[in-house]
Every structure is written in structure tokens, then in C-alpha cells.
């Protein structure tokens, strides 16, 4: 493992959790859902962790920046869509940030995650 680089799955998990939590916290700015803030933050963090782990495992198997970003987008979109579907609303407000977070995690795991021993560094 390269010095200073984190395991891809762990990086995906941490980044997904942090970005998911931040994503959830932003609902504070929407007065209509402010009362459910705790639930939203927990749900969003769990969603971020699931997406991050999936993207991290993908990055470990597939060493391609473009495919990593695409997979991140797909996972982010699907999970956000499911959440919005369960909420019966706020599709745009949930899916767009969720997809963007997926792209960021997809990019970060490919670019900054450490490849397992014996596998060349990721495409830069």
C-alpha cells in the first residue's frame, strides 16, 4: 500500500458517511422537514455508508477513473431515488445531491484509494 493512501473500501465508507451526514444536515435549511432532522441525518448517513462501501468494493475490482465515477453516479442515483420514493416527494432535492455525492465518492476512491498489494496504482 502506498504511504498516505487509504484502503478503497474504508475510504468509500468514511467519505460516504461524512458526505451523507452533511447531506442530511442540509435539510435543516428546509423548515418543512426540520422536525425530522435526526431521522433524515441517520438515514442519509446510512445511505452514504452503503453507497461508499459498494463504490469502494467496485474501485477495488475495477481500476478505471471513468467507470468509478459512473458507478458512483449510478449507486448514488439509485439509492437517492429509493429514499425519495419512500418519502413520496422531494425527488429533485434528494436525487441531485445523492448523485453528486456518488460521483465524488466514486472519483475519490479511484484517485485517492490505495490499490491492494500487487496491483498497480489507479489511473490518474
Amino acid at each position, binding site marked *: 500500500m502506498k504511504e498516505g493512501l487509504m484502503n478503497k473500501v474504508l475510504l468509500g465508507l468514511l467519505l460516504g458517511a461524512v458526505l451523507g451526514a452533511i447531506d442530511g444536515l*442540509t435539510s435543516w*435549511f*428546509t423548515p418543512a422537514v426540520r422536525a425530522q432532522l435526526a431521522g433524515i441525518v441517520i438515514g442519509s448517513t446510512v445511505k452514504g455508508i452503503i453507497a461508499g462501501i459498494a463504490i469502494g468494493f467496485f474501485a477495488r475490482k475495477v481500476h478505471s477513473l471513468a467507470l468509478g465515477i459512473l458507478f458512483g453516479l449510478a449507486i448514488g442515483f439509485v439509492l437517492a431515488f429509493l429514499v425519495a420514493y419512500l418519502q413520496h416527494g422531494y425527488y429533485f*432535492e434528494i436525487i*441531485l*445531491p445523492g448523485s*453528486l*455525492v456518488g*460521483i*465524488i465518492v466514486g*472519483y*475519490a476512491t479511484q*484517485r*485517492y484509494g490505495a490499490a491492494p498489494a500487487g496491483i498497480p496504482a489507479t489511473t490518474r
Partner: protein
Amino acid sequence: MKFLSDKAVERLRQNANLPDLSGTRYQLIECIARGGMGTVYAARDETLDRRVALKVLDVSVADGDLARRLNREARVLALLEHPGIVPVHDVGTLSDGRVFYTMKFVEGQRLDKFIETVTSLPDRLRLFLRICDAVAFAHARGVLHRDLKPANVMVGAFGEVLVMDWGLAKILREQSAEASEDDPNGTMLHTPPRPNDGGVQSTLATQATGQGTVMGTPGYMSPEQARGDIAQVDERSDIFSLGAMLRFLCSNPATATNRNRKSQVDKSLAAICAKATETNPANRYATVTDLSADVSRHLDGLPVSAREETIFDKAIRFYRRHTVAILLIAAYLTMRILFLIFSRR
């Protein structure tokens, strides 16, 4: 009465100079380069059925000083078994008394020509790093090249980089006592070659000389070499030549794109070149490895030892290194701010 034309006379002269390869395993193909001391021919090794480059003395004095020089050059090459250094195959004396050695026949282009096809600065720097590898290896074996320049580097058909022309090489350590006997001052006079357009670089001719002799190539030779100050010539003289080569690789405008031109003025790279080509050897990089490490760090977007950065420089370097990540986060934040603005309306 009919006179021969100059061209015909020259051809006759060349034919008369052709080496007599009878009794050897080599068959002459063509002349590929000429130097002050010898000529390099393409030849076929009939035993192994392969093409080789055969360097042969112009004079037939098997035990003369020039012969010793050529033998010494072959021994230097034999000492340097490295993928980045042209390997020597054989050394001997022809039936006409001329000393020769054979080496790998390199098909490719000289670096100064090849570089015109390489527009990307990072690709040029990666080529440079491979040259550094070969020179660092030679230094580790106690050998100085003393004539490093783009014309003395060949890039093969498969991208292999070979440092050629070790005719001016100096053995620093007494690994080869015989070699030092030949050259007590470790100094030789350089006579530039007259390569034809065959695309193959020859090793150059050398002559023994003493303290105060200027050797090398202007523009690439270190100030101590230019002064003929033999005592000062060491690894750092090669580092000066490498620095001059790096400057050439970074500034060759032949095919540089606009983006590359921006990179040419990159302060880190300019600082690396400046440090490597310092007039005072003590201010240069101590080893080729240090120089190549700085170039590698520059390639990786890391700070280089040749230059102290300001906070602004650090910020620019950080941005260049993480452009996509920064833009993605900026896009996310922008989206959030827009959501906030529109949700308030």
C-alpha cells in the same frame, strides 16, 4: 586525359578505408557514422545472425594509444550492463591491424530528433528520468560520461532509451586498474562525429591529452570541463549536462503546444534546471538520484527541493494536483447554495 570527380575520389578513399573483416564472424553492411578516431559500421554477426554496430579505428596500430583508447571504451561499456546503456558484444583486432569492438545495433532516433514527436511535457520528463537511471547506474559503477547531450541518447523503436557514446568516459574508482593506466589524467579530447543520416549514433573518437584540455560539447559541458579543470570534474559535471538536457527537453519549441508553453515557465522545473546547472559544483545536486527524485516529485505534483514555495505557490500546486476533486466539491456546494436560495423564495 580524364580526371576523377571529387565524389569518385571520396568514394575510392572510403572503399580503401573499409575494414578487412576476413577471419572474423562479421560481414560489413554499411558505414553509419564517422568520428575523429574511428568509424562505426553496421555489420552482420554471421554466427548469431544478427545486426551489430562495429566501431573500428581508422589507423592500423594495434598497440598504439588510440587502440588502447578504443579498448578502454569497450571495457567501460562492458562495465556498464544496464538496459539504458548500449551493450558491447565483442572486442578484437582485424587482420589489417585495426582494433574494433562491436555493440548492439540500435535502431531508433537520437533524442534531439525524437523529442520533436513528443508534445507532452510529462512524457519528456519521463524520458529524462530514464536517462538519469542509466547515468546514476554508471556513477554507481564509478564511471562519468562527460559528454551527455541529446545527440548522445538514442530512443529505440520500442521506446527504449539508451545512453550512447562513452568515448569520453572517465573511471572514477579504480575498479579497472588497466583502464586508469591508459589515462592517468582521466582526460580525453573530444572530436565530434560526422554521423550520416542512417539514424544510428556512433560512439565518438577520443584522444589522450592532459590537464587543461577542453572536452565535451558547448552548451552541455560544465564550467569546470570548459576550463579544463580536471580535478573538479566529478559526478556533478554529468549533473550539469543533465540539467542542460532537461532545459532542452522542457523548452524545445519545435512541437510544443500552448499548454506545454505554459508548463515551460513552471517555476519548479526552472528551479531544478537552475540548481543542476549551477556554476559552482557544490551548489548542484549531489547525485543524479537527487536530481531525478526532484523531477519525479515535480511530475507527481509535489514540492521540489530546488525551490522554496510561497503559500500562493502551494495553493496553486494543491489546486493543480486535486483539480477534479476541488471542482466536484465546488459543484456540490454551489448546488446546495442554489437549493438554499430557491427554497427561501
